[in-house]
């Protein structure tokens, strides 16, 4: 039986004390263990940033690549071996700024993987600059007069892209987050979990207390149906006095790898080598 201990990594953790990342790490491990996934069946892919270091803090396969390029690597790992459980993970800068184009196209493609975004609304590793999810007027060393642009709303973007599983978690509610991640992994297709997370070192606006006063669980709202796209848009746009967490939107679309002929006989990586006689048959069209 798989236990939390199987996922214990020997690599010392380089996060700030009190960071929300610790809760996300625990929730992810709990979700994987609850699903009985052994470490070698899992591959975590990340880019660059404090969140991206999470790859090293679980013992499973990991690819710690370039800033913003998490999703192209993760999608290709899944296409090359679709028996792996692939988790893509990173921060708001990595996913919503540098990797914005990949984010939109990954949702369109709908490859079966789980994307966890540690959204602390600030750039952490570069020490506290404005991110694409920072509030309008957010003051930092790169926006000393306050951010002039409103924040990106990743959930609205995801619902508009018909992403099959759109959820928001909160690092301050570990059990709820672990359950969301579990559901996201079970979802057959691209699943987004945007995770609200206070940055204890740099974000003085969106603190743990700030979030706690605002978040509410959407599944406890009477009559809420995550398959109702218009209702999902409405809730995803809600940001202020109340902020919903939970599964906001679900839709049923076949995932890409189920539609690729080359993957019908099993994972690409397990295919026998190409028979070179068949190559020679190709030469005929050039005679």
């Amino acid at each position, binding site marked *: 039986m798989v236990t939390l201990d199987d996922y214990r990594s020997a690599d010392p953790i380089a996060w700030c004390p009190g960071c929300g990342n610790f809760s996300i790490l625990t929730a992810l491990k709990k979700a994987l263990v609850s699903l009985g996934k052994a470490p*070698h069946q899992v*591959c975590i892919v990340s880019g660059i940033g404090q969140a991206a270091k999470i790859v090293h803090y679980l013992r499973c396969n990991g690819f710690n*690549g*370039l800033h913003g390029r998490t999703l192209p690597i993760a999608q290709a*790992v899944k296409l090359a071996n679709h028996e792996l459980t692939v988790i893509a993970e990173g921060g708001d800068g990595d996913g919503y700024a540098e990797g914005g184009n990949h984010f939109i196209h990954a949702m369109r493609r709908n490859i079966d993987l789980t994307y966890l975004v540690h959204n602390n609304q600030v750039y952490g590793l570069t020490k506290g600059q404005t991110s694409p999810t920072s509030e309008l007027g957010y003051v930092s060393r790169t926006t000393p007069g306050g951010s002039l642009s409103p924040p990106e709303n990743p959930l609205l973007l995801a619902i508009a892209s018909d992403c099959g599983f759109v959820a928001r978690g909160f690092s301050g509610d570990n059990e709820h987050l672990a359950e969301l991640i579990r559901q996201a992994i079970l979802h057959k297709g691209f699943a987004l979990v945007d995770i609200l997370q206070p940055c204890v070192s740099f974000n003085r606006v969106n603190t743990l207390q700030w979030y706690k006063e605002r978040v509410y669980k959407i599944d406890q709202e009477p009559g809420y149906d995550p398959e109702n796209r218009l209702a999902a848009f409405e809730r995803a746009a809600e940001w202020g006095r109340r902020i919903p967490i939970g599964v906001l939107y679900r839709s049923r679309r076949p995932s890409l790898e189920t539609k690729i002929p080359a993957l019908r006989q099993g994972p690409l990586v397990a295919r026998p080598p*190409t028979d070179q006689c*068949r190559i020679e048959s190709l030469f005929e069209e050039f005679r």
Partner: protein
Amino acid sequence: MSVDVNIRIGGKAGQGMQAVSGTLGKIFARRGCHVFIHQDFESRIRGGHNFAQVRIRTVPVRAPGDRVNLLVALDRETIDKDLPALGEEGVVVYDGEKSGFRSSNPRHVSVPLERLAREAGGSSVMMNSVATGAALALMGQDLDPLLEHLEEEFGSKGTEVVEKNQASARAGYQEAGRSCRLEEACKICLEKSARGRLLLTGSQAMALGALAAGLRFYAGYPMSPSTPIMEYIASKQEEFGIVMEPAEDEIAAVNMAIGASFAGVRAMTATSGGGFSLMVEALGLAGMTETPLVVVVAQRGGPSTGLPTRTEQADLRFVMHASQGEFPRVVLAPGDAEQAFYCMMKAFNLADRFQVPVIVLGDQLLNDSSFTLDCLEPARVGIERGEMIWQDLAGAPETHRRYAITPTGVSPRIVPGLCRSVQYACSDEHTEEGHITEDPAIRRAMFEKRMRKLEGIRREIAAPATGGSQPNEILLLGWGSTLGVLEEASDRVSREGVPCGFLHFQEVFPLPTFDFSAVLGPKTKIIAVENNFSGQFADFFRERTGLSVFGRILKYDGRPFTPGEVAGRALEML
């Protein structure tokens, strides 16, 4: 004396110059001739002035010809622009009715291409077939091979389409047959029994090489002149078990190739200089994470958008140095379709064996041109996947030491998911297990381990090809797509009484170790021949060998060299 016939088919984009050239090429290749076809076209979908040029010889050919013997003008602009390219004895066939061009010159043959197409085929689209028939008549050839070809080509579209095309071809053939012929020297005597040759473009050869190497994953974004590689592989994806992913941009394309390679399958992407510019950061990622990667860079005129459909060799220094920091890499630059095929197979082997990025440099001339060759034998290169672990070994650690320090610098990698061990890849400097570190001793050891792979790579890099006169007074120096031009130009210079040899590199980085004294006499002057502004390879050659380059024949107008042009410029330099 060997035959050398050069046919140029000119017209507006969309008029079918490629179809006519391809048909003529195939007919002659099947009868044992050597054929070279190059494409000269504008970056547009319809209109403009474009041509395809077919060169037919009875000896191997892989360079454009100097003089046009037969000009097939599908529009008026071709007559106006290309008549000067016609040799003194050359013949032009054109549509006098449509173009309004009048001439009393008996070598200017008017055939009403459009009217005949309408009368015989019912549509002006069949002008192609009329023109091809006319060209064969002027060359004194039989019509039958064309009729057979049309049947093959259009058989799937039904007998009506076949018959209309055949009628069009016959009409063109008969009409032009009443006129003068090409000079006797252009007579090609075909032997029915001759062994047919393959006729394929550089891009097709690269794609076939990748398939033969066991390619499993391709991600790409279309960019001229690399796109036909992606299209050919896409057409075979189901048959050969390949995942083809159209990426949102080149950054995604190259990162996807790296991700698939990390997961254990052979992966590649192809692009041109502009797309490669976007891939540069990920090239370093492949270098740092030691993930095998094959990237084809089919060069075109730069900088920026430059000359999108034309040829240049100006990205050599760029690909040699692209990406920050230092890491081992390989740059290969095949000289014709045959080399392109084997080169791709070798690229995958080198990438896997040394866990490095391998760049295959083509260009518009190589990628879009068609070459004849006798056969391709995948077994000559074979598949070598290097140090990969496909299943658990006894006593394997829970976490595989992906970056174990080894004498060769190559560390075995596992296939994630197939082994119970897990492995990390890391773009930061890392420990043997792949975790982030800034420890100076580990940094030094890891750096040295990576760079040590170059020693093994150097032993695998092929020596340059040499030819022409030895000893010599001139040695033409080149790389990549100029191979055919170097061969022919050195011959011509030698025939002018100046002994001339050539030295051609198809594997350029790291520069192969080679005893240059074998090709350099006491009087030898090295003249570099390159399709770029500065002579990038000449500088690199000088830097690595200490040998001085006497002169440079450079061309950067987007057009390929011809042998006569290079020979003439070389003789002028003396």
